[in-house]
């Protein structure tokens, strides 16, 4: 466990050095305990692969006091039971304009497009955490067989619902945003909506599976 000041009102807690299940489990347990028993000075939390960013009320505590408190929380969080993960199924159309980078991904790995789709849909991905924008889940691990670096120049606007890959990660863009991940498909499902709870389709710790659908099915699911 390592502490780094991120700003005068926030601190990063590192719970491991490598992306993986063990570190993820520690981050999630510490997060859950802090959500269950939030200290009065806690302002916000941002989990990620190996760390938890804590912002605090600097008129109540300083970094040293936060560190002391978090060491105790972390110790106690170890005895928390792991939750049974939910499985979220996401339909994706991997064709045409929905998949502007799938040819390039196939070419870089000497695969057919069918192979890329088969590999992307063949496993369940862990939602390591949500970040970047509301409802954006960092999913992994993507098979090495299709792992591809980010684009050199990010797109100024990625359409909402786009399914991207970057290194050994995959994700769905909930909103139209700039983005540098390679786009291999699109889902008609909304990833974040405020008319029902939970707002996000995917929560931290979920298992996510993709399945291939036709453009016709996409249109059918997209119309309300």
């Amino acid at each position, binding site marked *: 466990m390592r502490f*780094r*000041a*991120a*700003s*005068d*009102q*926030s601190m*990063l807690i590192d719970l491991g050095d490598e*992306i993986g299940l063990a570190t993820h489990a520690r981050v999630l347990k510490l*997060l859950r305990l802090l*959500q269950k028993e939030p200290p009065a000075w806690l*302002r*916000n*939390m*941002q*989990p*990620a*692969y*190996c*760390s*938890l*960013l804590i*912002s605090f009320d*600097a*008129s109540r505590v*300083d*970094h040293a006091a936060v560190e002391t408190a978090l060491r105790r929380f972390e110790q106690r969080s170890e005895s928390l039971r792991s939750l049974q993960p939910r499985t979220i199924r996401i339909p994706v159309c991997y064709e045409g304009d929905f998949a502007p980078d799938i040819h390039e991904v196939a070419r870089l790995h000497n695969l057919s497009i069918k192979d890329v789709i088969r590999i992307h849909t063949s496993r369940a991905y862990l939602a390591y*955490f*949500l*970040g*970047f*924008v*509301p*409802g*954006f889940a*960092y999913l992994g691990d993507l098979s090495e067989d299709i792992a591809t670096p980010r684009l050199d120049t990010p797109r100024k606007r990625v359409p909402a619902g786009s399914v991207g890959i970057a290194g050994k990660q995959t994700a769905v863009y*909930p*909103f139209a*945003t700039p983005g540098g991940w390679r786009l291999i498909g699109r889902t008609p499902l909304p990833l*974040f909506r*405020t008319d029902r709870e*939970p*707002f*996000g389709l995917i*929560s*931290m710790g979920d298992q996510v599976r993709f399945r291939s659908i036709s453009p016709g099915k996409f249109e059918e699911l997209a119309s309300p």
Partner: protein
Amino acid sequence: MNSLIVQSPGLLTTVQDLGRPGYGPIGVSPAGAADPVALRIANLVLGNEPGAAALEMTLLGGSFLFSQAATVSIGGADMSPTLNGQPVEMWLARSIPAGATLAFGPTRNYARAYLAVAGGFRVKPFLGSASTHVLSGTGGFEGRALRKGDVLRIGAAPRNTPKRQVSQTLLTSLRPRKVLRVTDGPQAGQFSPEALDTLTHQTFRVTEESDRLGLRLLAPPLPLPPSSNMITEGVSLGAIQVTPSGQAIILGVDQQTTGGYPKIANVIGIDLHRIGQLRPHVDIRFERTSLAVARALWIERERLFHSTEHLFV
């Protein structure tokens, strides 16, 4: 029900309050007024709760018709406010007769002006806040910037609307400035001493690619750390990220919640509201300070807000 009718929205006008901190785990950024200090003072002048919902205008203000009599106050940037064509003073409770029009023009100094109204604007809260987050279409008025013809409801005014004038000393102490104080960021140690030196010795220009998500700065590139292959982690408000091309970005209130660029420094708490008042083409500088100094300044600031006798004359 009293209401405000948008005659022209200006460049980018949204409903904002003090934001919704606490939803990082679902990827939701706090949003809220880019200059929360101006919003707080504008509300206190009216006897509102400090975080009552107000309108945030950007660079060019709008024009608004009041259906009934109301009391307003204007804070932040000077956008030459006029009431039925007559200049209106800022930082002061001001009565608006029924049917009057309050109009704003282009800014004469900073980036954002706030229009607060006694009783606050009434919108459906999202996660406990009225703040608009345009990117995700959540909060505020229909999750978007205001348009011509929008009608905003105004809440019931506090019983005794005080007509308080903000102290000049306070305004001076909270004034926007072009030198932002920073503490070391989480990756500061990975940058070379030259890079840290450059950060505090050169001038950075705020570019037009700047908004509530962040300010993109232009300057000779900062030398990057030897290996900048870091694991994505949570990012703080006011973090100064350095992109692979060596350019700096300061994260704003609508910020992305996580990122993979190294962060060389972070703007300190009492200067965060000043980020919201920087407009394109302005030159800024950074000054390094310690966590202890930053914290002492923050405590002093919050004390000021809690003892209202210093706020008003």
